[in-house]
C-alpha cells in the first residue's frame, strides 16, 4: 500500500483522472472529496464488499429456489410497477 501524508486541502491524483482531496480533518474523522469519471463507482469499502458478497450469494440461486416468490407479492402487475419485460423468448426453467 502506498502511504502518503496530506494536510487539509491537499490532494492525491490516481491515474490521470481521479483526484482525492482532504476536505476536512476533525478529530479522528477525515472528510474526503473524490473527483472521478462518472463511470467509476466510488463507495465506502465495507458497503461495496457487502454488496459484492450479496451478489455472489444471489448468483447461486436457481429457478427451483425462487418458485414460491409469487406468493410473496403484495401487488399484481396491474397496479404495481411493470414486471421485467421478457427480453427474449421466455425459457422453461430446468
Amino acid at each position, binding site marked *: 500500500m502506498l502511504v502518503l501524508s496530506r494536510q487539509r486541502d491537499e490532494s492525491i491524483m490516481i491515474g490521470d483522472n481521479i483526484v482525492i482531496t482532504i476536505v476536512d480533518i476533525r478529530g479522528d474523522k477525515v472528510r474526503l472529496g473524490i473527483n472521478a469519471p462518472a463511470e467509476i463507482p466510488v463507495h465506502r469499502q465495507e458497503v*461495496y464488499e457487502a454488496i459484492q458478497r*450479496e451478489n455472489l450469494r444471489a*448468483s447461486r440461486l436457481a429457478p427451483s429456489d425462487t418458485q414460491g416468490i409469487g406468493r410473496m407479492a403484495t401487488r399484481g*402487475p396491474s397496479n404495481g*410497477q411493470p414486471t*421485467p*419485460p*421478457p427480453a427474449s423468448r421466455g*425459457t*422453461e426453467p430446468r
Partner: protein
Amino acid sequence: MRITTTRFGRIDVDGSDIITFPSGLPGLEGCREWALLADSSNDALGWLQCTTRGDVALAVVSPRRFVPDYSVRIPRSELTPLAIDDLRQAQVVVVVGRTGKKLTLNLKAPIVINLEARTGRQVVASGDLPLQFVLSSEQPPLKKSA
C-alpha cells in the same frame, strides 16, 4: 446469439435485447453484458443472465410488487453514467437472495436499467436500507372442515 446457460439450457438472445453494464456488477465485474429473461412459470420474476458466463444469473423482481412503499434516493452521480437524470426514465429491479430458507431482496443496491439505451448499473441507494430484506409469504389460514 445463442448462449448456453446452466439454468435455462441453450437460449437465443437478440443483440438488441442485451443490456450493457459498463461497470459490470460488484462481485461480477467481468460480466458486462446481460440478457433479461422472463421466468415462464412465474410472472413476478425475471432473470438477468450473463451472456458471457452461462453459470451466472441473478433473479430480479420489481421491488414495489413486494415492498409497495419502496422508494429510493439515488445520488445523481450514480444515475449520470446511465444517461438518465430521473428514475422515471428507468426500470428499477432488485436482486433476489436467500438467507437460510428465506428469500430476500437487496433493497440497498437496486439495479437501474435505461431501457432505451439498454444500459444498466447496480447503484447504492442512500439511507439505511437492507441488503437482505426478508420476504414472507402470507398463507391463507387453513380452514378446518366442520
